[in-house]
């Protein structure tokens, strides 16, 4: 197992360097000079432009800039934002818990609804339930997140006023963040109503972010279940006279879950992509919105630092998934 871990880690290093090169190079391939954007319509003199480029280290050869950047990362220095001038790592850690909290709730919703929906569709194959659920899943999968989010806001926040429009908690509540996770911090604050407020703010963005993964999980569960339900051992289990619950819930589901778990793992990357739009619509102060804002401002250090940190997280999650496979199925270790 230790050798397996080492092998996986050894693969991570070139991957990380590759991602750092891509993040660094791609941003510089984009047209647009960040120094130009600093002044907007107010043109700065060529001397001033040169001075600022120099101060930001952007007048040096690109290879030197890259190695400087890599050197910084090794020592934990991801640089500072060109716009706000604050260190990137500090900003990242301030915003990351919000994204984790949102993604976690979304994946819980997606799993809690997606798996039962997929199971029902498989068991009632060809029925109105199956066609209805899979139809809804297809619509969910194809839903443009931005439009979907606005629709929910207009209906549930604007018209019905059941949920707040945006933000993480009612502005009535004010406490210093301890963990950065609003659900936990609201409980720690001891302020009455804070936790409920945090949940009500989390509801709509979580539903929006959960929509695509939910559809994917439901469809995957259905097809995996259908495959498993036609296996001999399921027929045998039925023939033995086991209750339908035991046949489906214990024998079939456990085996059908293997591809579903893989899918859930893959949805984490999808979640981070979805979070970019969801956070923008709901003014959710997470890393997705942070990245979008930075792209518009051509804030190079933030875009490349943010990309690298997100990539590192996805690599870490993949590593954990790989290790879990290794634990579950020893054949994979070799």
């Amino acid at each position, binding site marked *: 197992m230790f050798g397996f871990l080492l092998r996986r880690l050894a693969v991570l290093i070139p991957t990380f360097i590759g991602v750092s090169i891509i993040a660094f190079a791609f941003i510089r391939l984009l047209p647009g000079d960040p120094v130009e*954007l600093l002044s907007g319509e107010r043109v700065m003199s060529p001397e001033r432009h040169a001075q600022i480029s120099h101060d930001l280290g952007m007048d040096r050869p690109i290879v030197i800039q890259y190695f400087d950047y890599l050197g910084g990362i090794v020592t934990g220095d991801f640089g500072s934002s060109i716009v*706000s001038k604050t260190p990137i790592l500090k900003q990242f850690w301030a*915003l990351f818990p919000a994204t984790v909290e949102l993604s976690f709730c979304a994946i819980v919703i997606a799993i809690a609804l997606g798996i039962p929906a997929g199971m029902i569709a498989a068991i009632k194959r060809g029925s109105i339930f199956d066609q209805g659920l899979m139809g809804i899943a297809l619509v969910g999968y194809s839903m443009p997140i931005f439009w979907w989010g606005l629709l929910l806001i207009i209906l549930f926040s604007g018209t019905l006023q059941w949920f*707040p429009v945006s933000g993480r908690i009612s502005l*009535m509540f004010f406490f210093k963040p301890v963990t950065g996770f609003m659900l936990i911090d609201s409980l720690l604050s001891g302020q009455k109503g804070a936790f*409920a407020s945090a949940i009500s703010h989390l509801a709509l963005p979580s539903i929006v972010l959960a929509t695509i993964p939910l559809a994917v999980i439901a469809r995957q569960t259905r097809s995996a279940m259908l495959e498993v339900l036609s296996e001999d051992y399921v027929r045998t289990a039925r023939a033995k006279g086991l209750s339908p619950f035991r046949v489906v819930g214990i024998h079939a589901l456990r085996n059908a879950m293997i591809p579903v778990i893989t899918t859930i793992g893959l949805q984490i990357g999808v979640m981070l992509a979805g979070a970019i739009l969801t956070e923008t619509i709901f003014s959710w102060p997470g890393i997705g919105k942070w990245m979008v804002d930075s792209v518009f401002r051509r804030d190079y250090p933030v875009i490349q630092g943010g990309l690298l940190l997100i990539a590192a997280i996805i690599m870490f999650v993949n590593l954990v998934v790989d290790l879990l496979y290794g634990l579950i199925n020893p054949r994979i270790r070799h």
Partner: protein
Amino acid sequence: MKYRLTLAAALLSATFFAGAASAKTFVFCSEGSPEGFDPGLYTAGTTFDASAHPIYNRLLEFKPGTTQPVAALAQSWEISPDGTVYTFKLHPNVKFQTTEFFKPTRTLTADDVIFSIDRMINEKNAWNKYIAGGSWEYAEGMGFPKLIKSIEKVDDLTVKFTLNRAEAPFLADLAMPFASILSKEYADSLEKTGKKEQLNQMPVGTGPFTFVGYQQDAVIRFQKNVDYWGTAPKIDDLIFAITTDAAVRYQKLKAGECHLMPYPNAADVQSMKADKNLKVMDQEGLNIAYLAYNTTKAPFDKPEVRIALNKAINKKAIVDAVFQGMATPAVNPIPPTMWSYSKATKDDTYDLDAAKKMLADAGVKDLSMKVWAMPVSRPYMLNARRAAEIIQDDFAKIGVKVEIVSYEWAEYLKRSKDKDRDGAAIMGWTGDNGDPDNFLDTLLGCDAVGGNNRAQWCNKEFDDLVKKAKVTADQGERTKLYEQAQLIFKKDAPWATIDHSLAVVPMVKGVTGFTQSPLGDFTFESVDIAE
């Protein structure tokens, strides 16, 4: 079951509370995050709304609702006859805010003024580079490092600025947000503890509101400054709920989650006006959108060609299509709300036959040209692509073929100022200080060619007038000079002036005391909410 009911009740109560802010808490759904809290370092209005206006004051400030600089921290001033020495008498007993992180021991003095301005213009000042990569863009843009020769303390409450040359807009410059006055005592204490960056993160000023906290990209909280030297604010707490999407801001306003919002979508304004719980204020913005010909390139080097093309542009159609009527067609290069606006200027009337004839008389046949469309939405031009399409359509009617080009914004800014640029570029400007010089010399002066002067237009007669006005102290005299300059501008037509947009501010009915600023600032010093 019981648990489910409890949760539902809790959700309902939270939703209710989310909608009902306490009586004297004012919530502003701001459009973006501030870049920082030291106004000298930045140029964005979003940043100034969250820093310069609530937290700080300046020597002079713009009288609410106008662009006229009036006394603020400076209660009076004298200008030497040659216009190069400005002596300011400071308001006595102005206290800096007391916060959790700083307790001031003295009131405002000349030292604070010197500290605040000198750090921007003096590279040797220990605070000139206190933030890595930080630069003083506005001070640079207004030419302060070259303009200001020295700043001296005459006594604790008197400070003297000596300039290298006379500069009539200097008082207006000092009223701009970047020239906010910070506490030297606070800066000194941060320097001692090695926490200089904190000056940009945890601000202390003399303004109407005290900074309480900022949660990145989410909320900024302020409290009434109980020691405020001016008229005390009527609200106790001021909250900026950062909401970047205009449609979401509107929903928040409708749901009562905020009291006032900036920059609505033009398409939403009619329904806002129809909503009985909301009221909408509007005012002509201090801005201009224009189409700048490259006046150094044939055939656009001929004024008659430019005028012919101007006559073919249906500005009314642009205002209707792009702004849903929330703009006015522009005649002069400065907006009508600005002093010295020339009423004598006659606009080029939309007349396709006359345009065709003028082009033919100028010997222009089968003209193909590029029209550059900005890729971003700005207050003065919400959709440049749409405007360009209308122009393309109009020009086709007089036999001019238009190719619309666009680039990523930073690239657009760079390429559109290129002296060899082909065709005509849609651009615009929002005034900084309400002074006509900030439009006429900045955008059309000879020394701005290759820079802000995207028409590359250098007209000696025009330039002499605006340069003379710049060093003339008397406003009446300056007005005459600028009026003449506008007539020359129109005669020579380096631009097609397109529109001045209306700034629209929707708010809930109970809000009183809000004054719209022509400069687009959002200030809440005198705002109140009906109980």
